[in-house]
C-alpha cells in the first residue's frame, strides 16, 4: 500500500489478546501528521497496549502497523524509535538513579539528526517552560513527581522525534501543573510535532485535543472532536457517566 507522508500512524485490523482478555480487536487507528490526538477510555480498554504495539514493546497477534511512513509491523522497538518516535510510560521511567543532566544527555546519541533544528527549538522551549536545567546534577529521584513527568517528556524530546506518544503524562499532577503541561504540549504540537496522549483528565483533553479516540474493550468505540465525544450518549454511558 502507498504510505502517505501526511499519515503519522496507521494500524490495520490490529488484534491482540492476553489469554482471555481482548486488548485490541480489529483496531484501525489513524493519526495524521501534525495532529493532536487524545485517547480516552476506561481502565483496561487497551490504550497502553495500543501504544506498546505501536512502539514494538508488544507484538500484535495480527494486523499491520505503519508509523511515519514505514511498515513497522516486524520492526524492533529501537528501530521504530529511530524513525522519530518518542514514548513516555504510564509509570514514570525517567532514570531515577541518575542525575537530571545524565537523563537529558543520554538520549542524545540516538537523536534523529534530520529534525535537529526543529527538535532543538522544541527541547529548549520545554526545558525552559518546565524549568529543567540540563546541567543539573541533582539525582532524578529527588525531584517532585510532576518534575519527573516533565523530565521524561524532555528526555524524549532530546531525541528530536517527529511523533510523541504520552501515556497519562498528567497523572498525579495538580491542576496548575496540568495546565502547564497542556500549554507546553500545545505549543510543541503547533510547531508540527504529532502528539498522541492517553489521558483520563477530561479538562486536559478538552484543552488540548483536536480529535479524541475512545477505546473500550479493545475496540475503537468512537472517534471525533471533543464536542462530539462529550455529547455522544454511548460514550457518556460507558466512560464519562451521565453528566
Amino acid at each position, binding site marked *: 500500500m502507498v504510505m502517505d507522508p501526511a499519515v503519522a500512524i496507521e494500524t490495520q485490523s490490529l488484534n491482540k489478546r492476553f489469554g482471555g482478555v481482548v486488548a485490541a480487536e480489529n483496531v484501525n487507528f489513524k493519526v495524521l501528521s501534525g495532529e493532536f490526538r487524545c485517547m480516552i477510555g476506561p481502565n483496561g480498554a487497551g490504550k497502553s497496549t495500543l501504544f506498546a504495539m505501536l512502539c514494538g514493546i508488544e507484538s500484535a497477534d495480527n494486523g499491520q502497523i505503519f508509523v511515519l511512513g514505514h511498515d513497522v509491523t516486524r520492526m524492533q*522497538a529501537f528501530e521504530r524509535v529511530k524513525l522519530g518516535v518518542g514514548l513516555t510510560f504510564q509509570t514514570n521511567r525517567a*532514570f531515577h538513579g541518575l542525575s537530571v543532566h*545524565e537523563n537529558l544527555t*543520554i538520549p542524545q*546519541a540516538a537523536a534523529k539528526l534530520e529534525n535537529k533544528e526543529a527538535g532543538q527549538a522544541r527541547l529548549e522551549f520545554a526545558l525552559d517552560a518546565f524549568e529543567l536545567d540540563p546541567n543539573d546534577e541533582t539525582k532524578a529521584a529527588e525531584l517532585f513527581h510532576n518534575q519527573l513527568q516533565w523530565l521524561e517528556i524532555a528526555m524524549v524530546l532530546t531525541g528530536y522525534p517527529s511523533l510523541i506518544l504520552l501515556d497519562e503524562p498528567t497523572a498525579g499532577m495538580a491542576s496548575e501543573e496540568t495546565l502547564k503541561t497542556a500549554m507546553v504540549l500545545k505549543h510543541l504540537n503547533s510547531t508540527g510535532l504529532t502528539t498522541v496522549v492517553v489521558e483520563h483528565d477530561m479538562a486536559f483533553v478538552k484543552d488540548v485535543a483536536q480529535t479524541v479516540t475512545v477505546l473500550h474493550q479493545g475496540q475503537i468505540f468512537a472517534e471525533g472532536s471533543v464536542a462530539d465525544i462529550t455529547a455522544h450518549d454511548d460514550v457518556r454511558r460507558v466512560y464519562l457517566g451521565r453528566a
Partner: protein
Amino acid sequence: MSTVAGLISGGADIGRTRLFWIGFAVIVLLFLLYPTQTSAFRVSNASFYLLNVPLGLGMALLWGYCGVLSFGHVAYFGIAGYIYGIIAGNMSGNSFGPLAGVAGGLLATGFVAGVFGYFVFYARVQKWIIPILTLVLTLLLETFLGQTAGYQWRVGSVLLGGYNGMTGIPWFQLGGFVFEGYSFYYLVLAVVLACYFGLRMLVNSSFGHVIVAIREDELRTELLGYDIRARQWVVFVLSAVLAGLSGLLYVQWGNYITPSQVGLLQAALPVIWTAVGGTTSLLAVVISTFALNWVTFTLSSQGNQYAMVIIGALLVVTMLFFPRGIVVMLAERLGRLMTRRAAPSQP
C-alpha cells in the same frame, strides 16, 4: 567531553580532584619502585595479585556498569591460557610463537563469548539466566579439561594434561626479549594501567553512559532508540577478552595452567572481588582485586585452610551490610570527610 583528559576525569568512576590524582601518582610510583626494595619472590607475588586485575575490571564493567552478572567469567581466563599454551607450545622454536599465542588466546575468548553472548542477549532472556548459564559453561569446561589426561589428548605436540594441567608453557617474548621476573612485573603493571585508563575513558564516553542507562532501565533505554542487545553483547565480549588477558598473564607468571582455574571455587573469586570493591567503581575493584588476592595468597601459602570459608563469609557479609561495596563505601566516607575539612564553616 571528548578530549582524553575529559574522558579520564569524568564522573563515572571515583576520584576526580587534584588531590586524588596526586595520590594516584604516588601509588603508581611506589609500585614502580617496589622491585628495588624487595625480593624477587615478593615481586612475583605482587605480579600475581596484579595480573588478576583485568579479570576484575572486566567483571566490574559487565556487572557494575552494564548490569549483567556473569558467574563463569573464569572460563575465558582458562580458554586464553590454554590456547596460548597450545599455540606457543607448538611454535616453541619460532620467536613469533608467543605473539601468535596471545592473538590466538584473545581471539578464542572473543569468539566463545561472542557466540555465547549472541544466544543470551538476542534472546532477551531474564536476568538470572546469564549467571547460571555462564557458570554451567565454565563447569563443563572444567570437567572437559579434567578428563584430558593421557597422550591422546594433545594438540600438535602440546599435551592438555588432564587434572594436572598443561605445563612448560613458554614465556612471552617480544623480539627475543623474554618477560620474566622483574620485566614481567613491569609488563603486568603496564597492562593493568592501560586497561584501567582505557576502561575509565570508555565508561565516561557516551557509549559508557548508554551502558549505564541499560543497567538502570533496559526498556526505557531501548525506547530512546538504542539497540541494547548489541551493546550488551559488545560489553560482554570486551569483558571476556579482559578475563582472557588475565589468563594470558597468568600462564606467563606460572608457565602452567590447570582445569581448577576454571572451576567452581575460582569462578567465585571475581564475583567476590567485584562485590567487595563495589560494582559502581572500576578503581574500587582494582583495589579490592589486588587486596583480596594478597589475602587469599598469603592465607593459603601459610597453610591456612580457612581461606575459602573466610572469603565466602566475606561475600555474605558484604552483600548484607555493604551492598555498595566496602571500598566504595570507604571512599564515600573519605570524600565526606574531605569536603567537611575543606569547608568547616558549612552548616
